[in-house]
């Protein structure tokens, strides 16, 4: 590092490329093995879609538990998005404009989940659903509630960043032209916010599909399995390339939603730097 910028950056360059290879090549190999024609996850035996749908018993499509994990993850992600996005957007609007002590308290409450380690949140939710909210109990509903709880803050942070950059001029103009406050929000602010709301929805979907800890603390029986839970339990018990296929599908899902979010946010601020911060800060 101490070598000057002009003289020998190749040491740093080599280290950086080695790091990139170290971080990504294993995943590429795992993806490759999802297309393995044989049973092995360590020896390449030719390419096929056997573990996606070819194999009549243990492919992702035909093995009921793998298929269930996939549908559960997708459903959970979709419902989390549908609940967390409106809650978070409304909260972002409210917290940006509302002043006072209660607003600050609510703001702190919103920020806390971002700084709470998953295991602490998972344990707390597990305890509350087994000891207090026993009407709901563990299982799918609890998993959905848990996912919404850690997702709201992502939406608030992303949407609020956009709100602050819009400022209040458009809204004031609408009010001067006779719109009520609610009309100003609906007809002026929300359309301006739409791209960031969409981006946050995509990020919530990706985060929900990615979550392992909260889902697994609230897991009850085989019917509440999700893809990450299946990956976790499958690694040591039934290692076939079908697991790699499942992981590849999960990868595809989260990459698609994040790329979509990124494209929308980039269009929003064409000509400026990519909004890394907004994509980045969310997974703290």
């Amino acid at each position, binding site marked *: 590092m101490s070598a000057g910028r002009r003289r020998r950056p190749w040491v740093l360059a080599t280290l950086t490329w080695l790091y990139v290879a170290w971080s990504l090549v294993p*995943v590429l190999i*795992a993806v490759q093995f999802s297309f393995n024609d044989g049973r092995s996850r360590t020896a390449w035996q030719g390419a096929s879609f056997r573990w996606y749908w070819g194999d009549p018993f243990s492919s992702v499509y035909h093995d009921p538990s793998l298929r269930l994990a996939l549908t559960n993850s997708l459903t959970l992600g979709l419902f989390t998005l549908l609940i967390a996005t409106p809650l978070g957007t409304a909260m972002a609007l409210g917290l940006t404009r509302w002043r006072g002590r209660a607003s600050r308290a609510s703001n702190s409450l919103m920020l806390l989940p971002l700084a709470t380690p998953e295991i602490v949140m998972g344990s707390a939710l597990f305890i509350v659903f087994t000891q207090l909210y026993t009407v709901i109990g563990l299982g799918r509903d609890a998993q959905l509630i848990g996912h919404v709880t850690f997702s709201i803050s992502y939406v608030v942070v992303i949407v609020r960043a956009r709100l602050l950059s819009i400022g209040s001029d458009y809204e004031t103009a609408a009010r001067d032209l006779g719109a009520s406050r609610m009309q100003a929000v609906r007809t002026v602010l929300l359309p301006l916010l739409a791209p960031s709301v969409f981006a946050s929805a995509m990020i919530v979907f990706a985060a929900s599909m990615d979550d392992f800890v909260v889902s697994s603390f609230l897991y009850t029986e085989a019917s509440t399995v999700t893809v990450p839970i299946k990956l976790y339990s499958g690694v040591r018990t039934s290692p076939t390339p079908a697991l790699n296929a499942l992981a590849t599908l999960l990868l595809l899902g989260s990459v698609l939603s994040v790329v979509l979010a990124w494209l929308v946010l980039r269009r929003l601020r064409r000509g400026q730097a990519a909004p890394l911060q907004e994509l980045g800060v969310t997974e703290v």
Partner: protein
Amino acid sequence: MSRLPRDPRLWPALSLPGTAWLLLFFAVPFYAVAAVAFGQSDALFGLAVPVWNPLQWQFDDLADVLQRSVTGDLRPVFVRTFVYVGAALALCVAIGYPVAYYVARMAGRRRGLLLALILAPWWINYLTRMLAWINLLQPDGYVNRALQGTRLVSQPVDWLSGNPYTVIVALAYGYMPFFIVPLFATLDRIDGRLLEASRDLGIGAAGTFWHVTLPLSRQGLMTASAITLLPMFGDYYTNTLVSGSPSTTMVGNQIEFYLLQSQQKDVGAVLVLILSVLLMALMAYYLVQTQRASREAT
């Protein structure tokens, strides 16, 4: 914003549903942890019975677990957690800092590409990344075959049952992306003219790094460490996946064990509280340092 008159109803009303949700499903759950941790045990089966009235809380469990953590059977677990997390963080600094520095300040034409590549692991599922390594580290996996090919070892190395080095490297591997990106953001913001001025004044490249770049990236290092330490201290799945042996158990594994696999939920709840207090102290230190730094900057 100041031109808008205050509205007593609309803005609080919009914040209300989200706030209520977080109160119900974020704040109350923490209270429930305390109610179980400071609650009673069923005399017959030893099941944890929560006590909701704080005036009736008992602290026997807390005293018991603290005593076990300081002198008893939980002591090695805490020591191990600190050693593993410390070693993994050291690896993050040793590898992550140079990488972030290179991508932020020296990558030139390849900067965009490299940035995308160091961001990519953020969106690859953590368990997928672990699964990938577990495949490679199998007795007949690529790593052992490569090692045997170079005749460094004669027998395949057993990486995946109770090897502490595997756990440390796996932790570093898992959390490195979350370390590099905030550090990149800080290094990227450093004004290049400062570095040029320093070099023009003749303290050389090494001196410039030591006296200018490093102090200016201190805040980034702190943020990156905070972001990595928080989840690493509570991690249990990495450990289970790449080791699964009691000889490498960390605090997270104990929490998972007591809450999900035993009847002593109260012990699990106390451990969650201890871990939370530890991490809150860490965050408080971080916030105080950050505020001091921003005060100095102005």
